[in-house]
Protein backbone atom coordinates (compact mmCIF):
# COMPACT_ATOMS: atom_id res chain seq x y z
CA UNK A 1 0.00 0.00 0.00
CA UNK A 2 2.65 2.41 1.08
CA UNK A 3 4.46 1.82 -2.15
CA UNK A 4 1.42 2.66 -4.17
CA UNK A 5 0.84 5.71 -2.15
CA UNK A 6 4.22 7.24 -2.75
CA UNK A 7 4.12 6.57 -6.45
CA UNK A 8 0.75 8.22 -6.45
CA UNK A 9 2.28 11.38 -5.11
CA UNK A 10 4.54 11.58 -8.10
CA UNK A 11 1.99 10.54 -10.69
CA UNK A 12 -0.78 12.72 -9.40
CA UNK A 13 1.32 15.76 -8.80
CA UNK A 14 3.02 15.67 -12.12
CA UNK A 15 -0.32 15.25 -13.78
CA UNK A 16 -1.71 18.23 -11.93
CA UNK A 17 1.33 20.38 -12.69
CA UNK A 18 1.05 19.47 -16.35
CA UNK A 19 -2.47 20.95 -16.28
CA UNK A 20 -1.51 24.00 -14.24
CA UNK A 21 1.41 24.86 -16.49
CA UNK A 22 -0.80 24.25 -19.52
CA UNK A 23 -3.34 26.74 -18.24
CA UNK A 24 -0.61 29.28 -17.63
CA UNK A 25 0.98 28.62 -21.02
CA UNK A 26 -2.22 29.25 -22.91
CA UNK A 27 -2.10 32.85 -21.83
CA UNK A 28 1.62 33.45 -22.01
CA UNK A 29 2.19 31.66 -25.26
CA UNK A 30 -0.63 33.59 -26.90
CA UNK A 31 0.84 36.81 -25.54
CA UNK A 32 4.30 35.86 -26.73
CA UNK A 33 3.17 35.08 -30.26
CA UNK A 34 1.06 38.16 -30.40
CA UNK A 35 3.79 40.46 -29.21
CA UNK A 36 6.54 39.10 -31.43
CA UNK A 37 4.64 38.57 -34.62
CA UNK A 38 1.76 40.97 -34.62
CA UNK A 39 2.78 43.92 -32.50
CA UNK A 40 6.41 43.77 -33.55
CA UNK A 41 7.06 42.01 -36.77
CA UNK A 42 9.53 39.22 -36.71
CA UNK A 43 11.92 40.83 -39.10
CA UNK A 44 12.08 43.94 -36.98
CA UNK A 45 13.48 42.15 -33.96
CA UNK A 46 16.76 43.57 -32.74
CA UNK A 47 18.89 42.99 -29.70
CA UNK A 48 18.27 46.48 -28.45
CA UNK A 49 14.50 46.11 -28.48
CA UNK A 50 14.66 42.75 -26.78
CA UNK A 51 17.00 44.15 -24.22
CA UNK A 52 14.69 47.08 -23.72
CA UNK A 53 11.75 44.84 -22.91
CA UNK A 54 13.79 42.58 -20.73
CA UNK A 55 14.91 45.42 -18.59
CA UNK A 56 11.44 45.82 -17.15
CA UNK A 57 11.18 43.53 -14.20
CA UNK A 58 7.61 42.43 -14.90
CA UNK A 59 8.44 41.34 -18.41
CA UNK A 60 11.63 39.69 -17.26
CA UNK A 61 9.93 37.65 -14.57
CA UNK A 62 7.11 36.68 -16.90
CA UNK A 63 9.58 35.37 -19.44
CA UNK A 64 11.52 33.47 -16.82
CA UNK A 65 8.33 31.90 -15.61
CA UNK A 66 7.43 31.18 -19.21
CA UNK A 67 10.73 29.41 -19.69
CA UNK A 68 10.38 27.36 -16.55
CA UNK A 69 6.80 26.31 -17.12
CA UNK A 70 7.33 25.55 -20.78
CA UNK A 71 10.37 23.46 -19.98
CA UNK A 72 8.60 21.58 -17.28
CA UNK A 73 5.49 21.11 -19.39
CA UNK A 74 7.37 20.03 -22.48
CA UNK A 75 9.86 17.74 -20.81
CA UNK A 76 7.31 16.21 -18.51
CA UNK A 77 5.03 15.69 -21.52
CA UNK A 78 7.76 13.81 -23.31
CA UNK A 79 8.60 11.75 -20.26
CA UNK A 80 4.97 10.91 -19.81
CA UNK A 81 4.63 9.87 -23.40
CA UNK A 82 7.59 7.56 -23.02
CA UNK A 83 6.13 5.94 -19.92
CA UNK A 84 2.89 5.48 -21.79
CA UNK A 85 4.81 3.69 -24.47
CA UNK A 86 5.87 1.20 -21.84
CA UNK A 87 9.32 2.45 -20.92
CA UNK A 88 10.47 0.73 -17.74
CA UNK A 89 13.43 -0.15 -15.61
CA UNK A 90 16.95 0.99 -16.41
CA UNK A 91 15.98 2.56 -19.70
CA UNK A 92 13.44 4.62 -17.94
CA UNK A 93 15.93 5.86 -15.36
CA UNK A 94 18.37 6.72 -18.12
CA UNK A 95 15.70 8.69 -19.95
CA UNK A 96 14.72 10.47 -16.78
CA UNK A 97 18.30 11.52 -16.14
CA UNK A 98 18.85 12.58 -19.75
CA UNK A 99 15.69 14.64 -19.76
CA UNK A 100 16.60 16.17 -16.45
CA UNK A 101 20.02 17.18 -17.67
CA UNK A 102 18.59 18.56 -20.91
CA UNK A 103 16.04 20.69 -19.13
CA UNK A 104 18.65 21.94 -16.72
CA UNK A 105 20.86 22.99 -19.62
CA UNK A 106 17.90 24.61 -21.31
CA UNK A 107 16.98 26.54 -18.21
CA UNK A 108 20.51 27.68 -17.53
CA UNK A 109 21.01 28.79 -21.10
CA UNK A 110 17.65 30.54 -21.12
CA UNK A 111 18.47 32.28 -17.86
CA UNK A 112 21.78 33.48 -19.15
CA UNK A 113 20.24 34.85 -22.30
CA UNK A 114 17.57 36.69 -20.41
CA UNK A 115 20.15 38.10 -18.04
CA UNK A 116 22.25 39.19 -20.94
CA UNK A 117 19.36 41.22 -22.25
CA UNK A 118 18.44 42.58 -18.93
CA UNK A 119 22.02 43.43 -18.22
CA UNK A 120 22.02 41.42 -15.02
CA UNK A 121 25.18 39.83 -13.82
CA UNK A 122 23.71 37.70 -11.14
CA UNK A 123 26.27 35.00 -11.10
CA UNK A 124 29.36 36.25 -12.84
CA UNK A 125 30.77 32.86 -13.73
CA UNK A 126 27.81 32.17 -16.01
Amino acid at each position, binding site marked *: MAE*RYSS*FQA*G*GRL*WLWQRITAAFLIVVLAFHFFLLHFVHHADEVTFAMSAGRMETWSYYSLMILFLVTATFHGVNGVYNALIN*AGLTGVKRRAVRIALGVASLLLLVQGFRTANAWAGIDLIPIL
Partner: protein
Amino acid sequence: MSTQRQRAETETDSTETETAQERRLEEKRQRAEERERKRVEAEERAAADAERYHLKVFRYDPEVEGKQEPRFDDFHVPYEPGMTVLDALIYARDQFDASLTFRHSCRQAICGSDALFINGSQRLGCQTQLSDLEQPVRIEPLPHSEVVKDLVVDMEHFYDQMESVEPYFQTTDRPDGELEEQRQSRENREKIKKSTRCIWCGACMSSCNIAAGDNEYLGPAAINKAYRFAMDEREGEDMKQRRLEIIEQEHGVWRCQTQFSCTEVCPKDIPLTEHIQELKREAVKSNLKFW
Protein backbone atom coordinates in the same frame (compact mmCIF):
# COMPACT_ATOMS: atom_id res chain seq x y z
CA MET B 1 -18.35 -49.14 -32.97
CA SER B 2 -18.72 -50.28 -36.56
CA THR B 3 -21.77 -49.61 -38.66
CA GLN B 4 -22.10 -53.37 -38.99
CA ARG B 5 -23.07 -53.79 -35.40
CA GLN B 6 -25.34 -50.86 -35.46
CA ARG B 7 -27.44 -52.32 -38.22
CA ALA B 8 -27.69 -55.66 -36.48
CA GLU B 9 -29.03 -53.99 -33.43
CA THR B 10 -31.66 -52.03 -35.27
CA GLU B 11 -32.86 -55.33 -36.70
CA THR B 12 -33.32 -57.09 -33.40
CA ASP B 13 -34.98 -53.99 -32.23
CA SER B 14 -37.65 -54.06 -34.92
CA THR B 15 -38.38 -57.78 -34.74
CA GLU B 16 -39.10 -57.35 -31.12
CA THR B 17 -41.50 -54.51 -31.58
CA GLU B 18 -43.92 -55.63 -34.28
CA THR B 19 -44.20 -54.83 -37.91
CA ALA B 20 -46.55 -51.91 -37.36
CA GLN B 21 -43.62 -50.28 -35.76
CA GLU B 22 -41.53 -51.04 -38.79
CA ARG B 23 -44.12 -49.57 -41.06
CA ARG B 24 -44.30 -46.45 -38.99
CA LEU B 25 -40.56 -46.24 -39.02
CA GLU B 26 -40.50 -46.66 -42.76
CA GLU B 27 -43.10 -43.96 -43.24
CA LYS B 28 -41.24 -41.81 -40.85
CA ARG B 29 -38.05 -42.33 -42.75
CA GLN B 30 -39.74 -41.45 -45.98
CA ARG B 31 -41.20 -38.35 -44.44
CA ALA B 32 -37.82 -37.44 -43.13
CA GLU B 33 -36.24 -38.00 -46.51
CA GLU B 34 -38.92 -35.96 -48.16
CA ARG B 35 -38.38 -33.16 -45.69
CA GLU B 36 -34.67 -33.39 -46.05
CA ARG B 37 -34.94 -33.21 -49.83
CA LYS B 38 -37.17 -30.19 -49.59
CA ARG B 39 -34.83 -28.56 -47.17
CA VAL B 40 -31.82 -29.16 -49.37
CA GLU B 41 -33.70 -27.86 -52.38
CA ALA B 42 -34.83 -24.82 -50.50
CA GLU B 43 -31.33 -24.24 -49.32
CA GLU B 44 -29.90 -24.57 -52.78
CA ARG B 45 -32.48 -22.19 -54.09
CA ALA B 46 -31.80 -19.81 -51.26
CA ALA B 47 -28.10 -20.15 -51.73
CA ALA B 48 -28.44 -19.42 -55.43
CA ASP B 49 -30.32 -16.21 -55.06
CA ALA B 50 -29.60 -15.33 -51.47
CA GLU B 51 -27.50 -12.40 -50.77
CA ARG B 52 -24.21 -13.73 -49.50
CA TYR B 53 -21.98 -11.92 -47.13
CA HIS B 54 -18.30 -12.13 -47.68
CA LEU B 55 -16.32 -12.66 -44.49
CA LYS B 56 -12.57 -12.52 -44.21
CA VAL B 57 -11.63 -14.30 -41.04
CA PHE B 58 -8.26 -14.38 -39.35
CA ARG B 59 -6.89 -17.88 -38.89
CA TYR B 60 -4.00 -19.12 -36.83
CA ASP B 61 -3.22 -22.30 -35.00
CA PRO B 62 0.16 -22.87 -33.45
CA GLU B 63 -0.08 -26.59 -34.04
CA VAL B 64 -1.79 -27.18 -37.31
CA GLU B 65 0.35 -27.11 -40.37
CA GLY B 66 -0.85 -24.50 -42.79
CA LYS B 67 -2.25 -22.40 -40.00
CA GLN B 68 0.96 -21.65 -38.21
CA GLU B 69 1.44 -18.68 -40.47
CA PRO B 70 -1.45 -16.34 -39.79
CA ARG B 71 -3.76 -16.02 -42.76
CA PHE B 72 -7.20 -14.86 -43.71
CA ASP B 73 -9.88 -17.28 -44.90
CA ASP B 74 -12.85 -16.26 -46.98
CA PHE B 75 -16.35 -17.43 -46.22
CA HIS B 76 -19.49 -16.61 -48.13
CA VAL B 77 -22.45 -16.83 -45.82
CA PRO B 78 -26.06 -16.57 -47.00
CA TYR B 79 -27.68 -13.58 -45.43
CA GLU B 80 -30.85 -13.66 -43.38
CA PRO B 81 -32.52 -10.56 -42.02
CA GLY B 82 -31.28 -9.78 -38.54
CA MET B 83 -28.13 -11.84 -38.95
CA THR B 84 -25.28 -10.85 -36.67
CA VAL B 85 -21.57 -11.36 -37.14
CA LEU B 86 -21.74 -14.13 -34.54
CA ASP B 87 -24.53 -15.86 -36.47
CA ALA B 88 -22.41 -15.64 -39.59
CA LEU B 89 -19.40 -17.13 -37.82
CA ILE B 90 -21.51 -19.95 -36.44
CA TYR B 91 -22.87 -20.61 -39.91
CA ALA B 92 -19.38 -20.63 -41.38
CA ARG B 93 -18.18 -23.01 -38.68
CA ASP B 94 -21.10 -25.41 -38.84
CA GLN B 95 -21.36 -25.47 -42.62
CA PHE B 96 -17.87 -24.92 -43.94
CA ASP B 97 -15.11 -25.41 -41.43
CA ALA B 98 -15.65 -27.04 -38.05
CA SER B 99 -12.23 -25.94 -36.87
CA LEU B 100 -13.08 -22.25 -37.01
CA THR B 101 -12.66 -21.20 -33.40
CA PHE B 102 -14.13 -18.31 -31.46
CA ARG B 103 -15.55 -17.78 -28.00
CA HIS B 104 -19.26 -17.16 -27.63
CA SER B 105 -22.06 -18.19 -25.36
CA CYS B 106 -25.02 -15.99 -24.51
CA ARG B 107 -25.79 -14.49 -27.97
CA GLN B 108 -27.20 -11.47 -26.20
CA ALA B 109 -24.34 -9.20 -25.26
CA ILE B 110 -24.12 -10.24 -21.64
CA CYS B 111 -21.40 -12.88 -21.33
CA GLY B 112 -18.73 -10.75 -22.95
CA SER B 113 -17.06 -13.70 -24.72
CA ASP B 114 -17.13 -12.54 -28.29
CA ALA B 115 -15.40 -9.19 -28.42
CA LEU B 116 -13.72 -9.22 -31.82
CA PHE B 117 -12.00 -6.81 -34.15
CA ILE B 118 -14.61 -6.34 -36.83
CA ASN B 119 -13.91 -4.05 -39.75
CA GLY B 120 -11.38 -2.20 -37.73
CA SER B 121 -13.12 -1.73 -34.47
CA GLN B 122 -13.71 -3.69 -31.31
CA ARG B 123 -17.27 -4.98 -31.11
CA LEU B 124 -19.26 -7.92 -29.82
CA GLY B 125 -20.00 -10.33 -32.63
CA CYS B 126 -23.47 -11.01 -31.30
CA GLN B 127 -24.33 -7.34 -31.05
CA THR B 128 -23.19 -6.37 -34.52
CA GLN B 129 -25.65 -6.61 -37.39
CA LEU B 130 -24.06 -7.76 -40.63
CA SER B 131 -26.19 -5.29 -42.51
CA ASP B 132 -24.40 -2.42 -40.78
CA LEU B 133 -21.05 -3.49 -42.17
CA GLU B 134 -19.20 -2.95 -45.39
CA GLN B 135 -18.02 -5.99 -47.29
CA PRO B 136 -15.84 -7.88 -47.08
CA VAL B 137 -16.36 -8.08 -43.36
CA ARG B 138 -12.93 -8.42 -41.82
CA ILE B 139 -12.99 -10.36 -38.56
CA GLU B 140 -9.87 -10.53 -36.44
CA PRO B 141 -9.01 -11.36 -32.85
CA LEU B 142 -8.77 -8.45 -30.44
CA PRO B 143 -5.63 -6.46 -31.13
CA HIS B 144 -2.92 -6.12 -28.51
CA SER B 145 -3.44 -9.56 -27.03
CA GLU B 146 -1.76 -12.84 -27.64
CA VAL B 147 -3.65 -14.92 -30.13
CA VAL B 148 -4.30 -18.43 -28.88
CA LYS B 149 -5.99 -19.65 -32.00
CA ASP B 150 -8.10 -18.10 -34.76
CA LEU B 151 -10.24 -15.49 -33.04
CA VAL B 152 -9.45 -16.58 -29.50
CA VAL B 153 -7.06 -14.38 -27.56
CA ASP B 154 -5.43 -14.89 -24.21
CA MET B 155 -7.50 -12.93 -21.67
CA GLU B 156 -5.28 -13.70 -18.69
CA HIS B 157 -3.64 -10.30 -18.59
CA PHE B 158 -6.99 -8.56 -18.78
CA TYR B 159 -8.33 -10.66 -15.91
CA ASP B 160 -5.22 -9.92 -13.87
CA GLN B 161 -5.72 -6.20 -14.32
CA MET B 162 -9.39 -6.49 -13.41
CA GLU B 163 -8.56 -8.41 -10.28
CA SER B 164 -5.75 -6.12 -9.21
CA VAL B 165 -8.06 -3.29 -8.21
CA GLU B 166 -9.57 -5.24 -5.30
CA PRO B 167 -12.80 -5.65 -7.21
CA TYR B 168 -14.94 -6.62 -4.27
CA PHE B 169 -17.13 -4.74 -1.86
CA GLN B 170 -15.51 -3.90 1.45
CA THR B 171 -17.06 -2.03 4.27
CA THR B 172 -16.53 -1.71 7.95
CA ASP B 173 -19.95 -0.60 9.06
CA ARG B 174 -22.70 -3.08 8.33
CA PRO B 175 -26.14 -2.59 9.82
CA ASP B 176 -26.66 -4.50 13.04
CA GLY B 177 -29.83 -6.34 12.18
CA GLU B 178 -29.06 -9.57 10.41
CA LEU B 179 -31.84 -9.04 7.94
CA GLU B 180 -31.18 -5.40 7.44
CA GLU B 181 -29.75 -4.00 4.28
CA GLN B 182 -27.34 -1.12 3.97
CA ARG B 183 -29.04 2.00 2.74
CA GLN B 184 -28.13 3.47 -0.58
CA SER B 185 -29.77 6.50 -2.09
CA ARG B 186 -31.30 6.28 -5.52
CA GLU B 187 -28.96 9.02 -6.70
CA ASN B 188 -25.97 7.08 -5.59
CA ARG B 189 -27.14 3.93 -7.29
CA GLU B 190 -27.76 5.98 -10.39
CA LYS B 191 -24.23 7.29 -10.17
CA ILE B 192 -22.63 3.85 -10.16
CA LYS B 193 -25.22 2.21 -12.38
CA LYS B 194 -23.40 2.53 -15.65
CA SER B 195 -20.11 1.41 -14.17
CA THR B 196 -21.69 -1.81 -12.91
CA ARG B 197 -22.62 -2.90 -16.41
CA CYS B 198 -19.18 -4.06 -17.43
CA ILE B 199 -19.19 -7.57 -18.89
CA TRP B 200 -15.41 -8.01 -18.94
CA CYS B 201 -15.28 -8.26 -22.69
CA GLY B 202 -11.93 -6.55 -22.99
CA ALA B 203 -12.90 -4.43 -26.00
CA CYS B 204 -11.91 -1.21 -24.26
CA MET B 205 -8.52 -2.48 -23.19
CA SER B 206 -7.82 -3.66 -26.69
CA SER B 207 -8.73 -0.31 -28.19
CA CYS B 208 -6.56 1.75 -25.88
CA ASN B 209 -3.17 2.62 -27.29
CA ILE B 210 -1.80 3.38 -23.88
CA ALA B 211 -2.73 -0.07 -22.66
CA ALA B 212 -1.08 -1.44 -25.75
CA GLY B 213 2.13 0.40 -25.00
CA ASP B 214 2.22 0.10 -21.24
CA ASN B 215 1.56 -3.43 -20.21
CA GLU B 216 1.16 -2.47 -16.59
CA TYR B 217 -1.48 0.15 -17.22
CA LEU B 218 -4.60 -0.90 -15.34
CA GLY B 219 -6.71 -0.09 -18.36
CA PRO B 220 -10.16 1.42 -18.66
CA ALA B 221 -12.15 -1.61 -17.54
CA ALA B 222 -10.24 -2.10 -14.31
CA ILE B 223 -10.33 1.59 -13.53
CA ASN B 224 -14.05 1.57 -14.18
CA LYS B 225 -14.36 -1.34 -11.80
CA ALA B 226 -12.52 0.68 -9.18
CA TYR B 227 -14.84 3.59 -9.89
CA ARG B 228 -17.83 1.34 -9.29
CA PHE B 229 -16.64 0.75 -5.73
CA ALA B 230 -15.03 4.10 -5.00
CA MET B 231 -18.25 5.90 -5.79
CA ASP B 232 -20.51 3.50 -3.91
CA GLU B 233 -21.51 5.39 -0.78
CA ARG B 234 -22.09 2.15 1.08
CA GLU B 235 -18.36 1.55 1.35
CA GLY B 236 -17.69 4.66 3.38
CA GLU B 237 -14.95 7.32 3.31
CA ASP B 238 -12.04 5.24 4.55
CA MET B 239 -12.51 2.69 1.84
CA LYS B 240 -12.79 5.42 -0.72
CA GLN B 241 -9.34 6.67 0.24
CA ARG B 242 -7.98 3.19 -0.16
CA ARG B 243 -9.67 2.85 -3.53
CA LEU B 244 -8.16 6.10 -4.66
CA GLU B 245 -4.75 4.92 -3.59
CA ILE B 246 -5.15 1.92 -5.83
CA ILE B 247 -6.09 3.80 -8.94
CA GLU B 248 -3.55 6.53 -8.30
CA GLN B 249 -0.65 4.18 -8.61
CA GLU B 250 1.91 4.90 -11.27
CA HIS B 251 0.15 2.77 -13.85
CA GLY B 252 -3.31 3.84 -12.82
CA VAL B 253 -5.44 6.72 -13.94
CA TRP B 254 -2.52 9.02 -14.75
CA ARG B 255 -1.62 6.95 -17.72
CA CYS B 256 -4.93 7.65 -19.40
CA GLN B 257 -4.51 10.15 -22.21
CA THR B 258 -8.21 10.63 -22.86
CA GLN B 259 -8.10 8.87 -26.19
CA PHE B 260 -11.77 8.03 -25.87
CA SER B 261 -11.33 4.83 -27.87
CA CYS B 262 -12.47 2.83 -24.87
CA THR B 263 -15.66 4.82 -24.50
CA GLU B 264 -16.27 4.54 -28.19
CA VAL B 265 -16.08 0.75 -28.34
CA CYS B 266 -17.66 -0.25 -25.03
CA PRO B 267 -20.65 -2.42 -25.96
CA LYS B 268 -22.36 -1.52 -22.72
CA ASP B 269 -22.05 2.21 -23.36
CA ILE B 270 -20.14 2.82 -20.17
CA PRO B 271 -18.72 6.37 -20.20
CA LEU B 272 -15.27 5.09 -19.37
CA THR B 273 -13.31 8.24 -20.09
CA GLU B 274 -15.70 10.21 -17.95
CA HIS B 275 -15.23 7.81 -15.07
CA ILE B 276 -11.47 7.87 -15.40
CA GLN B 277 -11.43 11.66 -15.49
CA GLU B 278 -13.64 11.87 -12.47
CA LEU B 279 -11.30 9.61 -10.57
CA LYS B 280 -8.34 11.78 -11.55
CA ARG B 281 -10.11 14.79 -10.10
CA GLU B 282 -11.11 12.90 -6.99
CA ALA B 283 -7.53 11.81 -6.57
CA VAL B 284 -6.19 15.32 -6.93
CA LYS B 285 -8.81 16.63 -4.54
CA SER B 286 -8.06 14.08 -1.87
CA ASN B 287 -4.38 14.61 -2.41
CA LEU B 288 -4.67 18.35 -1.96
CA LYS B 289 -6.09 17.70 1.46
CA PHE B 290 -2.74 16.30 2.50
CA TRP B 291 -0.81 19.36 1.49
